[in-house]
């Protein structure tokens, strides 16, 4: 049981939590601006694929990261064009985004690597000490540039939203787009900018996922975008709390892995796998309904 309270466990929890957190922060940016965004899953997946494809081609994980962010921004802006300008319902557009990402990455795998399941391995960032001790693992997780960017995003988001003019306008667009427009704020432009930020941060999570595995696997986002959305809701659309919720989820998943090792081959092994998801359902069920949701979520400045 000592394995539960160890540096290894801490390192694992943080490592697992990063993609969730990035997606959740992306969700906060989109939804605080008033755009329903269930397409986080698709952006994670696309980010992961783009990062791997570009790293594989150029041997530069940094170029891969930049490309992933660009892809995330593009997809997020596409969602914004559909919902804000063409007035497609955001849920429809989000589903389309997810389906598109799934199909496009599959097609990419086939076209580039002639595989239905995964890409060849890549050489991602390697900083920090080698070795299998808990301390070494933790240092490796923390020294990762992608982790560092994610941390910066978590730290900067509440500040930007609460204390800057841009943040105030984003929140106004999300709470009451009609009122925002009446004082001369270009609501659509503000929302698209917030979506660009959202897509960039979310794609960061995708890159982390791929670099962590050192390759791309078909459908590797595996529902993380939706769990992240749950984190956004229970946090009341607040970045700091959403990050904490994701860390809690990461811890549960790490715990699940450790426990599974210990009870391998017994019948409850499968049950333990469901632990993080059951916990998510419980928290969602107990959380106050939509408390803190932006009032103008899904509404427009003019019909």
């Amino acid at each position, binding site marked *: 049981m000592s394995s539960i309270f160890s540096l290894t466990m801490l390192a694992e929890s943080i490592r697992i939590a990063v993609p969730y957190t990035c997606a959740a922060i992306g969700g906060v940016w989109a939804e605080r601006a008033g755009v329903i965004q269930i397409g986080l899953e698709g952006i994670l997946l696309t980010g992961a694929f783009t990062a791997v494809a570009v790293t594989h081609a150029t041997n530069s994980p940094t170029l891969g990261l930049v490309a992933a962010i660009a892809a995330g921004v593009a997809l997020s802006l596409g969602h914004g064009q559909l919902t804000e300008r063409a007035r497609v319902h955001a849920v429809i557009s989000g589903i389309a985004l997810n389906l598109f990402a799934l199909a496009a990455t599959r097609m990419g795998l086939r076209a580039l690597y002639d595989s239905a399941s995964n890409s060849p391995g890549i050489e991602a960032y390697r900083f920090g000490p080698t070795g299998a001790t808990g301390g070494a693992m933790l240092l490796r997780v923390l020294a990762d540039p992608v982790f560092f960017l994610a941390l910066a995003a978590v730290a900067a988001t509440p500040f930007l939203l609460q204390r800057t003019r841009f943040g105030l306008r984003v929140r*106004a667009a999300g*709470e*009451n787009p009609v009122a925002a427009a009446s004082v*001369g704020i270009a609501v659509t432009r503000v929302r698209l900018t917030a979506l660009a930020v959202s897509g960039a941060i979310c794609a960061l999570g995708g890159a982390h996922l791929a670099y962590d595995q050192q390759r791309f696997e078909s459908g590797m986002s595996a529902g993380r975008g939706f769990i992240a959305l749950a984190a956004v809701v229970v946090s009341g659309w607040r970045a700091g709390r959403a990050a904490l919720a994701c860390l809690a989820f990461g811890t549960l998943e790490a715990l699940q892995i450790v426990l599974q090792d210990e009870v391998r081959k017994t019948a409850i092994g499968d049950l333990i796998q469901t632990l993080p998801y059951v916990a998510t359902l419980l928290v969602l069920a107990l959380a106050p309904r939509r408390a803190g949701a932006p009032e103008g979520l899904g509404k427009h400045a003019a019909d």
Partner: protein
Amino acid sequence: MRGPVMKIEDIAVRYGDCWSIRSATITLEPGVIHAILGENGAGKSTLLKAAAGFAPRVAGTVRIEDGRGFGAQDAAGDPKPQAWTNAIGMVHQHFMLVSAFTALENLVLGSEPTGSFGRLDLAKARREAEALMETTGLRVNLDARTSDLAVGERQRLEILRVLYRGARAILLDEPTAVLSPLEAEELYTTLGALAEGGATIAVVTHRMDEVLRFAGHVTIMRRGRTVLSRPITADERDHPKRLEDELTRAIMGGEPPPEASPPALAEDAEVALSIEDLVLVDAAGKRVLDGLCLAVKKGEIVGIAGIEGNGQRELVRAVAGLEPGVAGSIVLGGARLPAVRSTEDLRKRRRAIAVVHEDRHADGLMLDATVGDNLVLGELGQIDGPAAEAALIKRRIDRFGVNPPDAARRAGELSGGNQQKVVVGRALDRIEASPERALVVLGQPTRGVDVGAAATIHGAIVAAAEKGLAVLVVSADLGELRRLAHRILVLHRGRIVTELPPTSSDDVIGRAMLGMEDA
């Protein structure tokens, strides 16, 4: 510093295939309060929006000239100059505030002072706001969440915001519709001071007494045209009767209807409605109804006065059977009304009671459904076929003068007053046809409704009383209560504190509304 002279020349505004303004010409000079009157749907709101640059103008020009050499003219279709947005401020009928923001955040929204890196400089904003509150006397708690502010405070915040943006012209759309008489008085004092200081001020209102007391210039709109625009002299203000008649005729385009008065009440009329010890505790634990007692006789019209938020809304809802948590007894026609446990119970109650809720958007209308559907809402299965339904809808439209008289139009497209006619018309017309009719409860029946339409509604209320129904009218318009009611009850903190005769003055009723027992 003088405000700009705004010259609006022969403008026309069209939404889709509906002309909101056919031809409007008006000059707004600084220094006096301009009142703009007209029936619902006459185009008053649209006129203000066009002047502030919010409405799709298809013809005409708007010119702004001020002494400082800022002159701007925009012909139809031109984008408005940037300076326009700040020079002219508009306070919309429905407040344009973000309820989750603090008052200060709302104040600066759109013209935020910033430091380095786009950082908000709220300290600077606060200093400027404090100075502004000091000079204008408009007080708002800057740190309160906007949703916690009272209506009057929110309105002050809107006006402060307009001033904060440096506007020297302020256009207000029905600002007093949501205010208590005392607050309205304060508002006009402030506006008067601003005008005196050289600002250009225009106010849309339906209340004639406000025009007669405070305005220096009046414009009447009728069916999308400005039909009268002239100054009001001090002499006229001293003898307002003639002016009032002239304005009323211009608004209606004909002779004004006779004023309503309550029907004679038989000495021995029996009690129809008797409410005992009504108590309702809201989610926050506040006793919104706190031992309320009242009785209404058959054929009697009883008015309820009170400052908004003292239990009016809950009283109406409790009688309608929409507050399951209410304690106490409601006796109608000698029998105690059972608690509402099913839709069947609710239907039964509604066969005896007609209800108009004060918030027509939340409780009275489906804005996305047609006017026709709204006019027969709740009567599914009780009307004999589509032909009968169409006839019923047409009758209600005609009887209450819903304009435009088009059953297929979306209810959300009607002006506020016409939406009100739909809600009131449906309730009154239905109850008169019901064999079990006993009671009419009306929350703010003529809020935002023009003189002519208000007269129609008042006529229908009196007619209902003449038919022997008991009538309970909750209203913020003391003039209305005085004209209609046999008795006025004052509601304060969830209970009836005083009963007053309808001849009581504003002052007496106002003091009672504030809970001053000696009134």
